[in-house]
């Protein structure tokens, strides 16, 4: 018997993701991978998978999936509203709980709640293609599984392997929201006027609807550049905040271009990346400066907390 999901509704931006791919920046290929790394890991842990297994990532509205096959475990993480339709009943789904899904069940991921990304993991493996050791779909370069394209309605997602657990796993994780994003001064910080720097640290910015897995564009008061609005194109990393000539910051996210020519005013501290990407369109954010040593310590603590969470599942 073959086991598969049929996609009845695809959702807005539904892709396969895993840990992403290393060592390809020099030819123009970014890390990609799950945007919210912590929720990605928890999803896999809940279904007893290898933590880096492929999951389905969705943004805002998620997919409606109909399952055919033998019983499997499934878990959803993030702040997600979803339901599971069984033969005679429809139950409201809870995140951070593993479910058993049977032949004919439907999983309806209605939307993320005041956040952007959510994750669906199954106990076992999807039957998908890997490129450079990762299934992560990069739709901009058509790299990864599903020919590097978003999942579409009508498609079937086959499973290669099922690992069924009889016991239900759960955890009580709550996604905390942040408004203050901690940043480390960028390499072109001195390109901006004193007023511009103050605006950067003291003003509210609004997340524009032009944001996606590549970058988060922000609207707000103009950050004035007094040196040069262009630099010689050079490498970027995720979290870099570039300010083009129009004075509006753009934050590089997981599918970002690997090279850029706009001045870098700051870089988001690694500790805040998972929560940054969850800030939805129209929300307000502010930047707060921290030192490198503090950023390193905070990341260590964040990482310990992640390991702790995982060990309790």
């Amino acid at each position: 018997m073959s086991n598969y999901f049929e996609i009845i509704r695809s959702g807005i931006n539904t892709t396969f993701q895993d840990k992403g791919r290393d060592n390809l920046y020099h030819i123009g290929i970014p890390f990609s991978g799950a945007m919210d790394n912590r929720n990605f890991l928890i999803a896999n842990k809940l279904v007893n998978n290898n933590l880096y297994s492929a999951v389905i990532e969705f943004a805002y509205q998620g997919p409606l999936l109909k399952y055919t096959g033998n019983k499997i475990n499934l878990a959803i993480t993030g702040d997600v509203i979803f339901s599971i339709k069984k033969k005679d009943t429809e139950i409201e789904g809870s995140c951070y709980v593993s479910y058993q899904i049977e032949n004919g069940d439907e999983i309806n991921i209605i939307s993320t709640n005041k956040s952007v990304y959510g994750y669906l993991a199954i106990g076992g493996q999807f039957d998908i293609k890997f490129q450079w050791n990762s299934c992560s779909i990069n739709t901009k370069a058509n790299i990864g599984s599903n020919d590097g394209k978003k999942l579409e309605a009508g498609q079937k997602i086959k499973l290669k392997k099922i690992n069924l657990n009889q016991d239900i796993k759960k955890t009580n994780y709550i996604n905390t929201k942040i408004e203050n994003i901690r940043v480390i001064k960028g390499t072109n910080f001195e390109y901006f006027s004193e007023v511009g720097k103050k605006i950067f640290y003291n003003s509210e910015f609004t997340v524009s609807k032009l944001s996606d897995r590549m970058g988060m564009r922000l609207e707000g008061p103009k950050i004035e550049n007094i040196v040069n609005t262009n630099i010689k194109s050079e490498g970027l990393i995720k979290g870099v905040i570039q300010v083009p000539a129009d004075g509006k910051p753009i934050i590089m996210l997981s599918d970002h271009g690997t090279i850029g020519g706009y001045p870098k005013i700051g870089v988001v501290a690694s500790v805040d990346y998972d929560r940054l990407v969850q800030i939805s369109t129209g929300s307000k954010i502010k930047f707060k400066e921290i030192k490198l040593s503090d950023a390193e310590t905070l990341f260590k603590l964040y990482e310990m907390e992640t390991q702790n969470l995982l060990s309790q599942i």
Partner: protein
Amino acid sequence: MIKNISNLGDAALYCDFGNEVNKSINSQVIKYFNTIKEKKFKGINNLTPSYNKLIISYDLKRTNFKEVKEYIENLNIEDVPKINSKKLVIPVCFHKTFSMDIERLEKILNLNREKILENFLNKEYFCYMTGFIAGMPFLGDLDKNMRAQRLETPRVKVPKGSVALTEQFANIYTFESPGGWNILGNTPLNVFDSTKEDKPNLINPGDIIVFKKITLDQYKNFNE
């Protein structure tokens, strides 16, 4: 040699080789890139060489700024064998549907369309680096009178195949992507092929590129 090392955020080293852009500085960058890539230091997970900078990304779970900086400062840069460079001809169509920024360029450069194309074609360009989007080559150097700044607000979508200019460089958009360069024409050639995992890029650093003008008919009937 590296003039200065600083941090780019908390998970990358920013190695500055100077302000100028020329082949000699660029080959220093490439030398470091090749050596570090070969040695595989614990935690280093990405290297981005550019004209005159090298960014070294690392996994903050495994190492940190201080460790990677010390490693780079004490690194013995050996002579790396020369990369085999090749010469390639890239066909470009300059039909008005493709030359999206020709009027802007005419204004900024104070040259007419014919003169701009004449300056652009019939010249050899050196590939300094690849990136931004997968496989995009950064080619230099444009004539002194051909240098324009980026658009004030980058486009959300630049068509695949666009050949574009900024400052002393030309590039080719290997995919539809956002971008702020001045678009001059379009090539039907596939410059990036992800099915070739070991060699996805048609153009690599060190290669020499020449652009050749083709008509709209030749563009439409182009067959690799």
